[in-house]
């Protein structure tokens, strides 16, 4: 029972972090949220008795991917511009 509650809390946290990373306009915070998703995912893998996958997820998802995204953000733009992206999306859909 307590196992079920723990996994449910972790899954809810993952959903919350993913929603936050979508709506957040500051891309640095969004990347940190995706790092948190990977961290929780690696804990879940460990709870589901897959330590191999948990190790990979912790090293690649939390450390390497986040850092590469942070470097990319530093070299490009940090804030997401709303009007431009919406127009681009509309022109792409047409």
């Amino acid at each position: 029972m307590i196992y079920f509650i723990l996994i449910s809390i972790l899954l809810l946290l993952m959903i919350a972090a993913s929603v936050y990373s979508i709506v957040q306009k500051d891309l640095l915070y969004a990347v940190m949220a995706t790092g948190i998703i990977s961290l929780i995912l690696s804990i879940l893998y460990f709870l589901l008795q897959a330590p191999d996958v948990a190790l990979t997820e912790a090293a690649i998802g939390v450390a390497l991917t986040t850092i590469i995204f942070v470097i990319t953000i530093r070299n490009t733009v940090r804030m997401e511009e709303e009007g431009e992206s919406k127009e681009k999306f509309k022109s792409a859909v047409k």
Partner: protein
Amino acid sequence: MKKVLVILLLAVLGYYTAVTFFDIGFGQPHFVAGVKPVKDIYLAKTVKPLTVSNAVTSIVVNFRGFDTLGEVTVLFLAVTVLGSVLYKKRHAVGERSVLFNASSIVTAGSKLLFPAIILLGAYVFIHGHLSPGGGFQGGVIIATGFLLMLLAYENYSVSHTALSIVESLAGITFAGVGLLGFMHGGTFLQNFLPAGVLNNLFSGGIIPIIYIAVGFKVAAELTGVIYTVLNEKGESNG
């Protein structure tokens, strides 16, 4: 009209995906009805002829060794393409851009942590056949150690020639061990070394050799990726 077409195409795609997935018997002892489950054979062979404690490793390196070689090749291709795309710009810009210097606590702490991280990575891939983990995991842990040093020290640099030599040697070792299987009258990546005693460090035949090679290869490749990306300086506000 266009939207209706898109929805129709998606519906067709979704229908066939759903049909395929409903045919697979998840949770049943027989994955596909009428076929003997392969997991029983793998698990039985892992303990008796192979004497490997970690069943995941025995499947990844022994039964599916050729797939692992393919994965390593995919990673190698990705790193090569990244390096070739960013090569020209790196030479044009030169120095790495630093927003602010790391504090003395960070530099001293990372100097202390770096050997421990490297040791952990080496442990993970040397003990790949005994404990959870393996070549990929250990290599990535070593790469994060180099990442820490690169972030803490702005003038810390990794030799690209050394990285490529390590990577090539590891790849040659993997393929060479695979080819040696032919010479011992088997197939590619055939296990030709004695299996040893269960839970010993020198057991499992060629699995430790292959995993050490994979560990070195992955570590060198990912360190190269981080170094290439870090030295890429932005034009607008870098």
